């Protein structure tokens, strides 16, 4: 179980980085494809909200690797 928790820590960090990368990449693709306001409103809402949440997920993964959740 300990190994699974530490392995999970790596997974959460990678998931957080991947999520941020995919969000920014998708946003820049859509901005370049069309100047429509709909896509901009959506990504201007999602990116500032979800980047801190993904930072929190990465932090959670870091503490999992450190073994803070061993009981």
């Amino acid at each position: 179980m300990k190994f699974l928790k530490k392995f999970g820590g790596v997974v959460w960090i990678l998931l957080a980085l991947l999520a941020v990368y995919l969000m920014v990449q998708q946003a820049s693709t859509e901005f370049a494809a069309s100047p429509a306001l709909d896509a901009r409103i959506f990504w201007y809402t999602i990116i500032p909200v979800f980047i801190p949440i993904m930072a929190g997920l990465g932090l959670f993964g870091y503490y999992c690797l450190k073994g803070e959740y061993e009981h």
Partner: protein
Amino acid sequence: MTKTAIKVFQNGNTTKTVATSTFSAERSAPPKLQKSKVSWMSSGNFWLLVLFVFIQILYVTMVYGPIAAFLVELFPTRIRYTSMSLPYHIGNGIFGGLTPLIATRLFDVSKTPGNPSGDPFVGLWYPIAISAVCFVIGFLYLPNTKEAAAERDDF
């Protein structure tokens, strides 16, 4: 001039569309058009939907009972208020509040030249993904709160 169209679908649901065109005395002015649409379900579908919603609310209430005691035992008194309040509001406000926006966006993205009407259920993937992550984290990392609180000697 009023046009009324009533459509009855195979599953018994009915849609009534009323279109009213108001013509002005000036022939050059375009007519003012007003449309209203009312949909209602067949009796059988309606009560089936009531049953499904009732069952889901039953699950929610089964969770809401013990979760208060479970959550307060997770953290020591010193940080309990912040540790309960912040995730609760982030969960309800951000994840719950942005669900319609994200689900609508996913539905919009699912419309392709091969499938112009889109997939009406694609928006469900968002709450499914969040719930799956919460399930894995809860399964792996949440302690038996009674033993953990007893170890801390802090209830």
